[in-house]
């Protein structure tokens, strides 16, 4: 192994920022000089299209419809998943009750149920939200269960020594202690919710960002298609960021408490 001198990290920052920039500039040049086929639209045109979608307000209605489905499914699925997961982590019979069914249903790609559910509910918001909620349930459930199972046992011994009731132990010890792991699950669930938001909108004609991207592809409006994809990326990115903020806000208190215990 070669030992290099540690260079100042500012130089690495230049590479980090420069590399995507170079890629974008190369793309721009290739698109302008017609090296790329016409469907590889130049980044500047995509940005202009995105701006015009914002200024004429067309994007917000679609974004609202998409985010409503993604968040509704995410909240329903992960709320049920986290509560059942924490219960399974605490009680062995509950865990056993769900174990086999969960193991099998988890393996099914939930999106494959979509046409079947669409027979009953149509290609509607309801069937989309059901699919998203079903898919969000499993990461939330598994991580909440593992979080509750992996608690430092001394916390539980301590609460038993202090003769705290089981309900209070669950609410005040087990839930806060398994929170970091629960949020790992929620992050996966949120990502899954966005994937399925797009997937369910692409199938069966609807509104929303995914269907806007698909319909502008079908119409040959490539700039609009790229701009929509950009918006999907941006909403996904900021939703993830918001969740991380909430997680660090909620878990910070817990870590502070842990330090107090250590003193």
């Amino acid at each position, binding site marked *: 192994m070669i030992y290099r001198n540690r260079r100042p990290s500012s130089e690495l920052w230049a590479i980090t920022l420069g590399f995507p920039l170079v890629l974008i500039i190369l793309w721009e040049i290739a698109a302008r000089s017609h090296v790329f086929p016409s469907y590889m639209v130049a980044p500047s045109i995509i940005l202009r299209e995105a701006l015009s979608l914002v200024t004429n307000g067309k994007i917000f209605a679609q974004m609202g419809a998409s985010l409503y489905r993604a968040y509704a499914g995410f909240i329903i699925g992960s709320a049920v998943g986290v509560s059942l997961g924490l219960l399974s982590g605490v009680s062995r019979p509950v865990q056993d009750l769900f174990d086999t069914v969960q193991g*099998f249903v988890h393996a099914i790609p939930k999106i494959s149920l979509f046409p079947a559910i669409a027979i009953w509910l149509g290609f509607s918001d309801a069937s989309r939200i059901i699919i998203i909620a079903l898919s969000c349930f499993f990461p939330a459930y598994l991580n909440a269960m593992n979080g509750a199972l992996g608690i430092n046992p001394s916390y539980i011994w301590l609460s038993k020594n202090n003769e705290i009731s089981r309900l209070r132990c669950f609410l005040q010890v087990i839930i806060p202690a398994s929170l970091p792991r629960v949020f790992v699950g929620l992050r996966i669930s949120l990502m899954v919710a966005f994937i399925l938001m797009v997937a369910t909108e692409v199938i069966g004609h609807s509104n929303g960002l995914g269907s806007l991207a698909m319909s502008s592809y079908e119409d040959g409006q490539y700039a609009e298609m*790229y701009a929509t994809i950009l918006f999907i990326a941006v909403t996904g990115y900021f939703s993830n960021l918001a969740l991380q903020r909430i997680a660090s806000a909620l878990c910070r208190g817990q870590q502070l408490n842990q330090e107090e215990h250590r003193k």
Partner: protein
Amino acid sequence: MNTRSNLVKLLGVCIFLGIWQGFAVLSNTRMFPSAVTVFIQLGYLVKSGVLLENVLSTLSKGIGGLSLAVFAGSLLGIVCARNRYINAALNPLIAVLYPIPKLALYPIVILIFGLGAWSKIIQVSLECFFPLFVQVYAGTRAIPKSILWLASNNQVKGWRLLRDVLLPALLPSLLTGLRIATPIMLIVMCVTEFIGESSGLGYLIVRYSSYFDPASALAIVLTFGLLGLIADRLIVWTRTKAVFWEKQIKL
């Protein structure tokens, strides 16, 4: 205790199937098939050979995409973990792209590769690349320095370093990545076959649904579940066999 826990597990399955059967009997329409009907339909599909043909069609594309993703993910993961300049260029870019649903790029992939098998293979590898890259990168980073020093002291370089030192050391994380990526592969295959395809399991689901034949559609859904379950068990089994020195770690 163990028998009791098994009994409760059995009870869970029975409750699930019971609720399903009860709903189906009560609603009493063809639109809500009972568990028994679905299993009979599954048996019929297996016997007629329709199922096997389409399973092979789906799996050949899916595994093709997955192996492309494994190759690209391990290559870039190892390179990024070993070279800090490439790492500085690629790693933040990949971290930003990771949470974006790559399925939104499917129209572009269709434009470039057409509606045939290749667009599906590329889409699968696009979506599976990220978990594999992240796992391989973390695995290569976690290799103990002393092992690398021992290798460089013995002048082990290039191909031999890769084959004898790096690959065995990152095999556990590669398999973990594969375990995350396989269900994603099934999801992507399913969606891309919904959109434009004339064979494969996803296409069968859409076709049976449009025939208002939910029993057959659910039978295919069950097949997807079985495939996922088998693949998962297979990866776990491979891990216990191949990574025999890490017995105590539960995947």
